[in-house]
């Protein structure tokens, strides 16, 4: 019912390919010490490699971490656990994996998991807030399943307890029975000896008087026969002899008188007044010789043969009664012991059953608080444990629900980001967006207002996560609606702000750069509401200018002396061939590396200047790629703290870009 682990091994490894060998070594050693066959050891090694590789490849795709290995060896099974703190994964189609489907799908995904579940007897994936455990159980099949463990398992604790108690009680009872029986037998025997001895002395005293008075033979005979008859249940023979060992009287046969008396062979004639045993083995027949005396003169002897047989019969009867009584007592004892065992065993069985139910999902019903203090305490402790576990479970469920919601929000947000961008005549356009968390607060969009005018937007909603994302989607919709009505960037943004200022949750604000590009005039007209500067590259000077017109972030509390409209400044630029502009969010400039340094505006300006000064021959998509690479190289494996968004556009001569109607976004 309960099994203690034989051995437990824990180890931690860096989640890198080069440590797979070390993991495998640990696993192999454990398999061997657990007694797995070579085939099973190989299979387990394969399964563990799949598990570990999956952690390295998927759980720690974006970051470095460790794999914790825990192997618990039980008598009949081994529990292998691989624990990581990376991303959790959903084993697809868990449980219903089948090879046919894998083959038909023509994919490789899921094969590792199929192999693990095929090799192991039970696989469980436990994932909760930053802790993932792949728990695999492999049973140890030993060919020679010994009979002893089987028998041992057959007997429950109750039976074991009863058997042992009865065994001990029986030994005690049998021991005391034997002792008492011996004592009684001895007592009875010595009583008999005393009785016979006093009887013999009486006969001797009478006989001495008879001899002195010279009584007749018949009188002698009568004397012994009367004694013999009145004590016939133990006296067998009485012989009176005179000092010359001539028989004076013989209880068996009167004709023996006057003959020489010969004692039975085993009897020593020198031992007087002490019972002698006729047969060393039997001890039932005894012989007693008492001298017939008058004063100090020995006149003859009384020879008595007596038997303890009658006594034995009585003893046996008594023994039978005692044995019967003992048996009855023993039966009651067994019953008592069995009932007593229930007292100890029942609570344990109850607790065990409850724990079983608990593991199969019932967290509600509590253990009744009853039994001795110890059981009371166990039940209480278990109930508390269950309450805590079910609370934790609820928390985990709530967290997972939250994670799911964020996932949904993230999905919604992805659909909100433009999937296709309109082709901008005269401009080469590149955009980039990467969310820091699952749901980001950055926004970019490129819209066609009318055949000649296009609106370009980059915005950053303060905060991250679901609320920022929701405000962002609202912002995007509002811009899409109002940009079509208005012709200048300022007018559009004022209208947007008018709508939004009442709808932005307090404490949240938006910085935005909104630009309107006029295709015919080759004019760019833009406003910035507290946003990062526009980086404008002038082909004639090969330099970048940081353009930062005045403007307050939307959602900022309006002060008395200034309004959003008053502060908003509009800038209009003429675009020459090779000129470029770059709109971005602070996710780029604030991208930090391991040492805490920031990418910074100067580095961004320099990078862009270097790239753009190569001339129009270089493709803007390469520019985009190089810039992203530069940022990623800088931050290394550090998780970005903020969304990264940018829009890069370069002015080109007409005709170069007329071929494509729309442009599909790439990541």
């Amino acid at each position, binding site marked *: 019912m309960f099994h203690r682990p034989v051995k437990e091994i824990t180890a931690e490894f860096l989640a890198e390919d080069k440590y797979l060998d070390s993991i495998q070594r640990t696993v192999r050693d454990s398999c061997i010490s657990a007694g797995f066959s070579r*085939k099973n050891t190989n299979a387990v090694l*394969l399964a563990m490699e799949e598990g570990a590789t999956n952690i390295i*490849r998927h759980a720690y795709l974006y970051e470095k971490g460790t794999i914790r290995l825990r192997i618990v060896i039980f008598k009949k099974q081994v529990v292998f656990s691989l624990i990581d703190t990376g991303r959790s994964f959903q084993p697809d189609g868990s449980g219903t994996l089948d090879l046919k489907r894998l*083959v038909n799908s*023509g994919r*490789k995904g899921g094969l590792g998991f199929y192999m693990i579940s095929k090799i192991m007897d039970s696989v469980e994936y436990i994932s909760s807030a930053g802790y993932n455990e792949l728990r695999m159980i492999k049973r140890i099949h030993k060919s020679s399943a010994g009979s002893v463990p089987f028998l041992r398992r057959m007997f429950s604790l109750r039976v074991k307890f009863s058997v042992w108690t009865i065994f001990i009680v029986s030994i005690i009872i049998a021991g005391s029975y034997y002792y008492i029986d011996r004592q009684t037998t001895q007592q009875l025997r010595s009583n008999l000896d005393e009785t016979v001895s006093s009887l013999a002395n009486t006969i001797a005293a009478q006989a001495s008087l008879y001899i002195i008075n010279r009584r007749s033979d018949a009188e002698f005979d009568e004397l012994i026969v009367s004694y013999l008859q009145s004590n016939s249940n133990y006296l067998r023979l009485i012989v009176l002899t005179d000092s010359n060992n001539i028989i004076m009287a013989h209880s068996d046969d009167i004709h023996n008188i006057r003959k020489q008396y010969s004692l039975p062979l085993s009897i020593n004639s020198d031992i007087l007044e002490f019972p002698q045993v006729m047969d060393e083995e039997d001890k039932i027949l005894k012989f007693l010789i008492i001298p017939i005396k008058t004063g100090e003169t020995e006149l003859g002897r009384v020879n008595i043969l007596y038997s303890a047989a009658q006594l034995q019969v009585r003893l046996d009867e008594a023994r039978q009664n005692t044995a019967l009584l003992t048996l009855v007592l023993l039966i009651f004892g067994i019953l008592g012991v069995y009932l007593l065992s229930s007292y100890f065993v029942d609570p344990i069985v109850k607790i065990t059953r409850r724990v079983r139910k608990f593991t199969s999902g019932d967290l509600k019903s509590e253990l009744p608080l009853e039994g001795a203090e110890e059981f009371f305490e166990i039940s209480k402790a278990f109930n508390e444990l269950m309450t805590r576990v079910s609370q934790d479970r609820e928390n985990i469920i709530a967290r997972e629900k939250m994670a799911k919601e964020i996932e949904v929000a993230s999905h919604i947000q992805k659909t909100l980001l433009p999937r296709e961008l309109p082709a901008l005549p005269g401009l080469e356009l590149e955009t980039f967006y990467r969310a820091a968390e699952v749901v980001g607060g950055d926004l970019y969009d490129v819209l066609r207002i009318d055949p000649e005018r296009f609106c370009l937007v980059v915005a950053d909603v303060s905060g991250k996560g679901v609320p920022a994302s929701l405000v962002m989607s609202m912002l995007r919709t509002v811009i899409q609606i109002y940009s079509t009505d208005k012709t200048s960037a300022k007018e559009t943004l004022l209208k947007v702000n008018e709508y939004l200022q009442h709808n932005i949750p307090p404490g949240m604000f938006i910085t935005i750069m909104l630009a309107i590009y006029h295709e015919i005039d080759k004019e760019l007209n833009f406003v910035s509401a507290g946003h990062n500067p526009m980086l404008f590259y002038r082909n004639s000077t090969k330099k970048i200018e940081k353009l930062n017109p005045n403007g307050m972030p939307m959602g900022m509390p309006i002060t008395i002396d200034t309004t959003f409209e008053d502060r908003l400044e509009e800038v209009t630029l003429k675009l020459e061939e090779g000129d470029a502009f770059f709109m971005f969010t602070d996710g780029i400039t604030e991208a930090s590396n391991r040492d805490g340094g920031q990418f910074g505006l100067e580095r961004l300006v320099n990078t862009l200047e270097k790239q753009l000064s190569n001339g129009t021959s270089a493709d803007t998509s390469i520019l985009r790629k190089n810039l992203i690479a530069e940022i990623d190289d800088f931050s290394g494996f550090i998780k970005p703290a903020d969304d990264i968004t940018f829009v890069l556009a370069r002015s080109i001569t007409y005709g170069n870009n007329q071929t494509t109607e729309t442009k599909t976004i790439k990541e």
Partner: protein
Amino acid sequence: MENISISLSENERDRVSEIRIDGVIDTTTSSDLEEVIESLLKRRRYMIILDLAGVDYISSAGWGIFISRIKDVRNNRGDIKLANMIPNVYEIYELLEFDKVLKSYLSVDKAHNDFEDVKEAEPGKKKV
């Protein structure tokens, strides 16, 4: 990590390709093998024998290459046949029930013969 060596020999007469692999097929080495097989399939050479005599170990990445291609290969009346598996590898192959999907042979010649038989018996017959 152990290395892998792959040698490819193509028989122009019967269009059967033989790939001899030595080493370990795992996550790090499987891409090399995948490239070789992919190049064969691109050239529509669907009859492939893998000589695994020198392979000590195949991880899911390795099995995945065979499992993911087999359907496509068979639809083109070809096959991927495994030959000369060592006991350790064969046991896993059996345990994971890959024997229900991929055929194995004791030698490369036997695998060759099986291709011959199918072609002779009925050229148009779909191989199961």
